[in-house]
């Protein structure tokens, strides 16, 4: 087993997703000329910017060994609350936007706090959080609210031109900034490495003197922040807010994270991979639209199957690793081990 192969292996799930996306897109472009247009490609980012933001936040939560099921509900709540504040209280979007981000972060912090202090499973707490957020959205308004705030409208329509006539929205820029920040956080800060450590073995992380509790609360806080930001982008896109928006989106986000190569049990994966998870999700929708014959529900089925494949591959990997670890190599191949190690004082009998 050569060294380079080993290094490759931890990237395998993410590389597989990237290949899947590229291959899928190329095949699509050959089949449907419309897909070869640059704008179709950029639309993929425009349409999925909010999902990318939400999934990025969720990636960190999942890496820490947790889960956040409240993503979709917080998006809906943010959209309604923002719309209500702008339309019915006349607050400027410049105040509403930071307020909403603060609300999302506070909501995440609350959930993280309960998970940490009361040791309740994250899955239960965020489930309740999901109910709560969606319910609150309907407390604010039962109907959809259209947003007329001028700055919000400008932001929504702003186009950033790239090659030729093709463009992306501001949302894409926001999404990429979030992605970059989270990549930095995950791989180049002590906080990020603590997140990975917790996902690998929380008990050990605690015994290693890492601030597990604080990190956990912070992870959910960032998750809530991302959901709120995704909610703003979502409502900015549609220029309205409604409690029914983003129904079941948490599942799409989880699927994107898993397809992006992150282990659902935590500790293994890359924030960068999540982007491709989101893109694969978008690509399937695009392919189905271009195909024209397949109905939209195939998206869900295909996403479900892809998620399954990734889960199966990862669980196979995990059991392979376990088996390797359980087989004691030393006696069978002392030579292999000793090339890296100083020869022990007494050679093995």
């Amino acid at each position: 087993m050569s060294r380079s192969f080993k290094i490759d292996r931890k990237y395998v799930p993410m590389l597989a997703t990237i290949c899947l996306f590229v291959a899928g897109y190329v095949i699509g472009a050959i089949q449907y000329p419309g897909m070869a247009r640059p704008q179709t490609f950029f639309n993929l980012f425009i349409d999925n910017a909010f999902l990318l933001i939400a999934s990025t936040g969720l990636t960190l939560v999942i890496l820490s060994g947790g889960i956040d099921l409240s993503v979709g509900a917080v998006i809906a709540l943010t959209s309604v609350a923002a719309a209500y504040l702008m339309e019915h209280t006349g607050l400027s979007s410049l105040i509403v936007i930071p307020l909403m981000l603060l609300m999302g972060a506070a909501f995440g912090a609350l959930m993280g706090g309960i998970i940490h202090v009361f040791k309740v499973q994250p899955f239960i707490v965020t489930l309740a959080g999901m109910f709560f957020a969606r319910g609150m959205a309907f407390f604010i308004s039962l109907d959809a609210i259209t947003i007329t705030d001028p700055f919000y409208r400008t932001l929504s329509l702003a186009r950033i031109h790239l090659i030729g006539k093709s463009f992306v929205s501001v949302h894409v820029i926001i999404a990429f900034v979030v992605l970059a920040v989270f990549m930095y956080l995950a791989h180049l800060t002590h906080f990020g490495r603590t997140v990975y450590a917790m996902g690998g073995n929380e008990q050990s992380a605690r015994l290693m003197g890492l601030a597990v509790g604080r990190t956990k609360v912070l992870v959910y806080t960032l998750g809530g922040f991302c959901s709120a930001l995704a909610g703003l982008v979502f409502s900015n896109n549609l220029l309205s807010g409604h409690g029914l928006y983003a129904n079941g989106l948490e599942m799409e986000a989880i699927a994107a994270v898993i397809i992006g190569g992150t282990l659902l049990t935590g500790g293994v994966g890359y924030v960068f991979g999540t982007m491709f998870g989101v893109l694969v999700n978008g690509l399937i929708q695009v392919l189905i639209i271009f195909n024209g014959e397949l109905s939209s529900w195939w998206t869900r089925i295909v996403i479900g199957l892809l998620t399954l494949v990734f889960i199966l591959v990862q669980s196979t990997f995990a059991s392979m690793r376990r088996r390797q670890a359980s087989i004691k190599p030393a006696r069978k191949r002392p030579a292999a081990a000793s090339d890296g190690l100083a020869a022990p004082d007494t050679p093995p009998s």
Partner: protein
Amino acid sequence: MADSDQVILTMKGISRAFPGVQALQDVDFNLRRGEIHALMGENGAGKSTLIKVLTGVEAPDTGVITLEDKEVQVRSPQHAQELGISTVYQEINLCPNLTVAENILIGREPRRTGRIDWKRMNAQAVDILERVDIGIDVTQTLGSYSVAIQQMVAIVRALDVASTKILILDEPTSSLDTYETDQLFSVMRKLKGQGTAIIFITHFIDQVYEISDRITILRNGKLVGDYDTNSLTHLELVSNMLGRTLVELDSVSKSRSKLVADGHTSDPVMQARQLGSTGAIDPFDLDLYEGEVVGFAGLLGSGRTEIANLLFGVDKPDHGTLAYNGKAVKKFSPLSSIERGVALSPEDRKAAGIVDELSVRENIVLAMQANRGWLRYLSSAKQTEIADKYIKMLNIVTPSPEQPVKNLSGGNQQKVILARWLATNPQVLILDEPTRGIDVGAKTEIQKLVVSLAEEGKTCIFISSELEEVLRTSDRIVVLRDQEKITELTGDEMNETLIMQTIAGS
């Protein structure tokens, strides 16, 4: 006290009581710079309590700890680390998904303008590992290395986190094989040479002699004494640890010796031919006859548990054949073994034995019910009857059969598991470490039970780390080393010296 300047730590008059137990009573302990000091004792002797007092997990009721001539009170594990006392546990408390470098340096990562400087971190990790002569790729995940390496990374981390003066190794070798143990020992010697004082806790007597300079022995919460390793014989060590003469069961064994002398007239109950499983146990032959106790002697990881698991069908062999009453075994699973009349009381009582929240009654009937299948449910009256029968027979101390088994003491839990298997009326009973971690009284009861079961015509396999226990109960002893069945000893060959020599491979 010529070398009192060498003493780094003294613990004097340490006592600690828990409800119902005097865990430590007036224990003295001292440790010198640059020595490897073995702390020995049976389970329940007070070793772990002493370590907990030293590392600030438990506060002593009385007693004084002096570290480098200063009296200290260790308030918490963190405080212990600040004082330079680090512990590495048997279960490696590191993160397998992080790289080796991270595992060593997380919390103190070198940074450049706020962000982690991976290059420097890896270089530092390599440096630190080189200090103990380990040269491995630190950018690989920890999980991709063997347990031994992981253990050494844990040690290195412990040394590096604080300027460790005292390193406590709590049964570090339990899951290591001989070669890995040697690796660990060379690291320990290296550290010793650098002046670190090491407290080494282990069950393996030969390892104590191989590595330690001094031995402190505890028994029932009291200090037996501390000795220079060179001046203490094996027998003295064992008898100091056990603190009792070895007569109790001798009479039982002797009355049985004629049975063995008769030789095996009947056909074997179980017959393994070149049975083996890659990576667990090399192919072996084994015949088991009616009415005998076969002891397995060997260290942990020598293959004794692996053979038990194969015979019981927990693991599937990839080599050879197994026959039961002359018929070839095709299906390897616990259930099919139970149907055949084979039973296994597993090594790890907590993880694979008891179902802790179920009642004593349910725990006793579980295997019997599994054998009957889900439809032929034993009525609760019948279940209680069975449970009562075995509670009486095995003298299980429990307020009622409805008591959750987790509330019972270790010895009684072990008896519940024995009851579970006796209820299935097995022909072959495999007992893997049935006396581990239980009090002496229960130990003797279980040993007697094994012998009497054999007298009834059952076949018993008795596996234990305690050699003299195997010697006393067995009619025949299979010696294992290094995942290999080395030999079978009978009659006069069955003596401690020969077995030890065989195990040691000399």
